[in-house]
């Protein structure tokens, strides 16, 4: 049976290790599979685990929730790892980051999905770092460790790398917002646009 083009694309992305755009291709695969004639002997099944993991890498919890509702019960029952991944998604939905990190770290994932799980963990940590530097002017090390899913010593190390200050008691971190300011790009084209605006307003 010919492999669906979307399935080939997914294989390529998984092999490359760069998971951007994976969710879109999984969506295309799901719709392609749904169009198969009902009489087909061995119909192609959508890759439910990969699809869910792709959503979690992008922290797209709304679409993850709808995907779970669409997944047929047979697919859920057959794949224990899928159910474990959904547990992680549920923790993320209720913003229980420590539990989500714990689940990701402690479950014995099969070797094929380990890169995906690693991608989910690193994306979670990155988002947490962004959030902490945005939201906190001072935060206890333990609390930060909880949010970032790291141990306290690892948190302190990461903080040093990011340039956050540690206070003298050793228990409080002062995150710093690393905001990049891009100067506006003004050139002749912009002058053209402004001229057009003035002409329009005068007419």
């Amino acid at each position, binding site marked *: 049976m010919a492999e669906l083009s979307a399935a080939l694309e997914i294989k390529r992305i998984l092999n490359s290790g760069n998971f951007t755009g994976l969710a879109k291709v999984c*969506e295309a695969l*799901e*719709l*392609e599979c*749904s*169009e198969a*004639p*009902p*009489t087909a002997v061995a119909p192609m099944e959508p890759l439910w685990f990969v699809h869910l993991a792709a959503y979690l890498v992008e922290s797209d919890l*709304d*679409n993850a929730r*709808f995907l779970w*509702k*669409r997944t047929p019960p047979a697919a859920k029952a057959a794949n224990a790892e899928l159910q474990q991944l959904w547990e992680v998604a549920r923790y993320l939905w209720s*913003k229980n980051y420590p539990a989500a990190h714990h689940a990701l770290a402690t479950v014995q994932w099969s070797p094929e999905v380990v890169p995906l799980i690693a991608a989910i963990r690193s994306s979670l940590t990155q988002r947490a770092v962004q*959030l902490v530097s*945005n*939201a*906190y*002017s*001072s*935060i*206890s090390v333990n*609390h930060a460790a909880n949010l970032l899913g790291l141990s306290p010593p690892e948190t302190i190390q990461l903080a040093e790398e990011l340039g956050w200050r540690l*206070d003298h008691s050793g228990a*409080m971190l002062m995150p710093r917002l690393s*905001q990049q*300011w*891009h*100067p*506006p*790009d*003004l050139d002749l084209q*912009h002058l053209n*646009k402004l001229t057009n*605006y003035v002409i*329009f307003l005068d007419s």
Partner: protein
Amino acid sequence: RVTISLDDVYWRDFLLQVQQFLKACSKAQILLAPQKFAFVCRKFVEVAIAQQQSKRTIRALQSALLKFQPSPEHLTPLHADFMQVCLVSKCYHAALPILQQEILEVNPAASALVPRDLLLYFYYAGMVYVGLKKYREAIDSFQLCITAPATALSAIVLEAYKKYVLVCLIVHGQVVPLPKYASSLQRHMKAAAQPYSDFATAYVEKDLKQVNLCFTANYAIFEKDTNVGLVKQCIACIAKKKIQRLTLIYLTLSLADIAENAKLSSAQEAETHVLRMIEAGEIRASIDQMNGMVCFHEDSAVQDGSDMVQKLDSHIAQVTSLTARLQRLHESISSDPAYLQKISVQDRQSRYDAEEMGFDVLNEKAAFSSKAMSFDM
């Protein structure tokens, strides 16, 4: 509701055939028989939903829709069908490409469109937006459904109004009044959706106890309308709204004070709430855990960068194109024979009266036609 009394074999074949047809049909051919084509698509959707095979219709319908539309700004009956299957099959993401089309034109002759299709499309679109948590777009969509000109209240409009009330509460904390061009059926809508109006009134006070009382009192009605989820989201937003109000009054506030103001159980809970709101971009603040304080920032951050300029440019371009379109619309109406006839009748009448009374004919005529122009616009 259509009950299909076909054998398995027949519906299977039918779905497959139409699926392949929709993908392969030629644009020129289907435009010659719009009514039949729309009818086939509608039956396709009905059978698929009845047989729980709605997912398989999505791509076929999408390609058919894109072929059937005279332009990406035209509404067709297939729009409503497409939204329906996306909702039923829970493939909300698949609806986005069509939702992003800006619907500005209708051509009933070319697309066999009836008003019901328009109401259904905007109602379903609103529901998809709610599912994707795009509440502002949902409000716009529901508003388009509710403000469609009508002389009698339609069930679709009533359901859209109920959801409109709830989504307004989530976004604005109160029901946004409908624009002036809305039909005069507003009073009937409010009366028919009394529990929702009561809920909205209780909500404006932001008193959690009152709101919960109203919720439990009307639970059966909310459940029948499948709006319980939305109502619960409204209630969950109350603490958020209270905290947002605080940002307008205070520059810094202790977590304990926030908890007291927003009726939360502890400073810990207040911190969680504030953190979630910062994550969602609903407020700009920074938490000082060492002192248990929150510092609220001004809304306008340093945004002189290039992305701000780009945003401004795109907004201005949008307004320019909209103005040009309005200008064309104005010109086309002014040269419409029906309109000119109406104008000339009124003109003749005014001239007759003016001569009778000896007024200045020219002034009268100018005043009349300018009044008629503004009335038509």
